[in-house]
């Protein structure tokens, strides 16, 4: 069956219009998914940062308690504090500007405390370690409170 040139042009232009509409919808859907993912990931990132900082702080408390009671070797505690301090420092450097100060401030405090604790352990200064332990408890309480409200508000 043969088609006239005009019919062919009309069918072609309709097909192009239909293809364009499909493409537009696909791009819009992809954008929506990307935006949704970005929105999710920003909130998820805060949660992840808080969880990691809390885990490091509580691990540090266990290391320091162990060292105070002569339960773990000093070299291990020192290296652990150094390694987690560096890891937390890297996370802090990568924090987005939009992150809540309720998360970033305790994270920075914890990183500072890890560094102070390492020097205190190195110097065998148990009194300073006691101080760091009490500061770590405050920072973890602040982060815990943020996590709690964040979870309750469901944001």
């Amino acid at each position, binding site marked *: 069956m043969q088609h006239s040139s005009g019919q062919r042009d009309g069918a072609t232009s309709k097909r192009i219009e239909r293809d364009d509409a499909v493409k537009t919808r696909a791009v819009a859907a992809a954008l929506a998914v990307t935006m949704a993912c970005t929105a999710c990931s920003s909130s998820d990132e805060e949660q992840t940062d808080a969880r990691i900082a809390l885990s490091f702080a509580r*691990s540090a408390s266990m290391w320091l308690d162990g060292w105070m009671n002569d339960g773990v070797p000093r070299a291990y505690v020192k290296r652990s504090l150094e390694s987690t301090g560096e890891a937390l420092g890297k996370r802090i450097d990568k924090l987005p500007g939009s992150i809540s100060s309720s998360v970033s401030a305790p994270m920075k405090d914890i990183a500072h405390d890890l560094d102070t604790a390492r020097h205190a352990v190195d110097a065998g200064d148990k009194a300073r370690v006691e101080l760091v332990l009490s500061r770590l408890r405050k920072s973890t309480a602040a982060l815990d409170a943020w996590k709690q409200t964040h979870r309750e508000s469901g944001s």
Partner: protein
Amino acid sequence: MKKLLEISLGVVTSIGGFLEMGEMSTAAQAGAAFNVQLVWAVVLGTICVAFLVEMAGRFSAVSGHTIIDGIRDRFGIKVLAWPLVTTVLVSLLVLSAEIGGVSIALEFATGITYRWWAVPVAVASWLFLWRGTFGMLEKGVTSLGLITLCFVVAAFRLQPDWAQVAASAIPSKPHTQAATYWFMAASILGASLSPTLFLFYSSGAIEDRWDRSYIGANRAIAALGMTFGGVISAAVLVVAAQSMHAHGIESIEDFHQLPLLLIDTFGMWGFALFAASLAIASFGAAVEVALLQGYLFAQSFGWNWGQDCPPRANPGFSLAYTCALVIGAIPIAAGADPLKLTILSMALTAVNLPLMVVPFIVLMNDEHYMGEHRNGPVSNAAVLGITGLAFVLGVVTLPLQIIGGT
């Protein structure tokens, strides 16, 4: 009486050789992050690996072939090439992770950073393979691995809610961090179902000259050894849930956190026990994975192989494990994070599983090789179902984890 002794020894070495860096890290991370909720992944992995190990031993005892040898014989080298290449690549990553495991244990013991230990550990593993016999590895190192039973003792001392642990044996959906949850499930399955284990077991059956008279012993070793091994793995998860998750440590991002698993229960002894468990378990696994590279190449290309023969009698086989140890040491010596490398390699193992398992299942159903000892529908369904689940979870969650999803 002799068979009973062999079964006992087989079960003991299976238990001692079950836990390694991969099992330990994945179970610890899962317990810290999700309490005991992922016990089901350990249970599924243990069921599947018991089936796979039983099948591997039965295949070698009945056909007189190793699995690799059988796949090459049945399908030809072109079909074998795909699983061979991917298994070699993933095994090299696993080898790096195990060298990393021994290296971090040595860092704990000496205070010298793990990177400096990568080359000495690779050299020690090579010397063990070069000078040692299969029996030394099978019975010596893996028997020392019984030290990992300290995790079972710790689990009981921590008095978890056993009813909750038992209830967690049934799969459930996560309340938070869905991507991480399913990724951890894939990693646990990958750690349990590593092809290293059943390919090695099959080669070991030929090294030990198994025949049809070993079918019963093989079944007992696979069922008991893997079940008890799974219990140790579940114990690590329970200990992590009790000593880390319960203390608010929901994330293990740094390998220095791992000794806290036992420090909480045993104090200074816990630290020493953890370092010793990690060193012995990872050293045994590093030697096995390196040896597997020798088996893979030699059996694929028809070279001489056998750990009990002197290296000059098997030059290709010896060269393969030597090269593997050199390559495996590089990432750790270069400063790659052993913990992250381990978790990644376990997830990749899950993704790679079907490439080796599917042709193996075909072999297990082939009358020409297996005669009356062919697989039943239960074995086929269990292995294909769990392998498929591990593959799907790995494929879906690995990209999400790499781009940082939670």
